[in-house]
């Protein structure tokens, strides 16, 4: 956790509460010229270069790219959770407030409460030593306070919302007692129990079987419709993006290759990289012959 840009002594004035009060006419999330830099022995390297996008309430932006494209670093930069040494510059405006100016203390108020995150591997993302109930409830207690019993009730309700059968019993179970799909439901319950304004989902279905993936995607769409949450959906799978996203951003090697509505990207791609990626996706519908490879130079 070392965002040098976010100084520990950042001014407190108008801090904590104002983050949650939208500035008039502002968007949910407005990222401008985001650049993420890591120091290496060969000098600093930009893993995200000059990336700009916005997300409106109830809408989903899909960021799609192959490994090393910088898509995950974009999401961690928004959360202020870049790995050691990582530094973000540019503007990340959340309801008009620049998150990059916030102190770590202020960011903690935002994380979990206003912006929640779902990770790829639900097993390693859950602490094996605590029951899932405790882990769902602790975010609630950290932000809203209240008794343990009340928080547990929140956890049970959240588990019911993500359609885990018998939540009163299951709330006291440990992560390893759940299947992969169920664990991801728990992660979603955890992310949604505070009704955040924005959910960042980083490859949330990659580790899952295809039938379970379909269930989880349906669940996420359903919950988003209910709550009107904005969503940043990160994936390598173009077909998944086509199913969930309103807008799509294609990344490669830290750079934005293309950005537009899902329909624009899929029906009329402008960048040759996007076209090549689309050509490379194997399809189950019909076989037109060889799928095309993508050249990487």
């Amino acid at each position, binding site marked *: 956790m070392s965002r040098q840009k976010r100084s520990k002594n950042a001014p407190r004035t108008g801090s904590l509460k104002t983050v949650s009060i939208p500035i008039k006419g502002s968007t949910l999330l407005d990222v401008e010229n985001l650049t993420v830099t*890591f120091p*290496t*022995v*060969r000098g600093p*390297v930009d*893993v995200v270069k000059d990336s700009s996008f916005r997300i409106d309430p109830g809408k989903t932006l899909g960021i799609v790219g192959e*490994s*090393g494209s*910088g898509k995950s670093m974009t999401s961690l930069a928004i959360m202020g959770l870049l790995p050691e040494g990582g530094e973000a510059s540019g503007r990340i405006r959340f309801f008009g407030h620049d998150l990059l100016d916030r102190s770590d203390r202020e960011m903690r108020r935002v994380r979990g409460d206003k912006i929640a995150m779902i990770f790829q591997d639900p097993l390693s993302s859950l602490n094996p030593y605590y029951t899932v109930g405790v882990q769902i409830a602790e975010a609630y207690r950290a932000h809203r306070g209240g008794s343990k019993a009340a928080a547990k009730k929140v956890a049970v309700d959240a588990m019911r919302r993500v359609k885990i059968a018998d939540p009163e019993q299951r709330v006291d179970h440990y992560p390893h007692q759940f299947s992969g799909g169920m664990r991801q439901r728990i992660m979603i319950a955890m992310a949604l129990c505070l009704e955040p304004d924005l959910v960042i989902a980083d490859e949330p279905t990659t580790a899952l079987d295809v039938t379970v993936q379909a269930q989880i995607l349906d669940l996420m769409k359903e919950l988003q419709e209910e709550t009107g949450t904005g969503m940043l959906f990160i994936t390598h799978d173009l077909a998944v993006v086509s199913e969930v996203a309103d807008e799509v951003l294609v990344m490669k*090697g*830290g750079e934005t290759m293309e950005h537009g509505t899902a329909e624009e990207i899929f029906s009329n791609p402008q960048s040759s990289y996007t076209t090549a990626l689309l050509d490379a996706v194997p399809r189950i519908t019909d076989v037109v012959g060889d799928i095309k*490879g*993508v*050249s*990487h*130079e």
Partner: protein
Amino acid sequence: MSAPASELAGGTRKGALSTLDSGSAPNPVKRVVAALRSTPSVVVSFGWIIFIVVLALAAPLLEQITGISPYAYHENAIDPALGGLPLGQWGGVSAEHWFGVEPGSGRDIFMRIAYGAQVSLTIAVAATIVTTTLGVVFGMLAGFFGGVLDQLVSRLMDFLMAFPALIFMIALLSALPAGNRPLLLVIVLSIFAWPYTARVVRGQTMSLRNGEFVESARASGASPARIAFKEILPNLRGTIIVLSTLSVPQYIGTEAALSFLGVGVIPPTPSWGQMIASSVAWYAVDPMYFVIPGLFLFFTVLSFTVVGDHLQRQLDEGDAA
């Protein structure tokens, strides 16, 4: 089909970040050596180890040159009126006796340190060779073949590790006839220490055995013996080097402790631990007598540990060491 060179992004194995800081030196051994050479503490430690090895090897030569035997009593260097305390400052440090002399007997401490180094290093290195060999053989057998063999070896290891090793070593050494003490020390140390090497080797072998490259060697038609020696053993190399480097200081320390307790190397053969033991009676009046062997012991154990620690770190960082 795209051009084959298209994927030539370098070693994009762990994503963009690791590509950038791994200089992907052609030879992993060179990379480790280069990293170690740029670490001052390792260089100093290595220097000390070389110094001690040279001291041990050169001990007979030094004896000839100076004409001072480690066993010779120098009554002119001690003061009988004071119960045999060394004459002069700092425990009798002089041009003739560089580290002073032993109180009571007047034996030259420097020569005893040099010969003591010989004893300590011989025992520690011999025990390391024996435990590493036993540990690798048993660990690989148990980890590679599993089943009944693994059960047998594992139970034997559990049994030996449940022993209160130090107490038992002391008891055993005190019970056994004197005979060749250094040899006995090596045997006793090895009996109780090999399971620690074997346990690590076994664990690594088990995880390597489940690796797909072992399965692909089987699919290629390799016999179990070839898989063990050609596929698995090269991957254990780093671990074995680290384990043996870290064994040496442990055995030096244990030998010294046993000698300190009077069940190790038997006088008059010098040993650092034994020198400290005989200094107990004099520590209040002649502190140099325990400080010198104590520091030699400390620096030697420390140096081996520092080198071992850094080798371990290099092994953890680079996948190919």
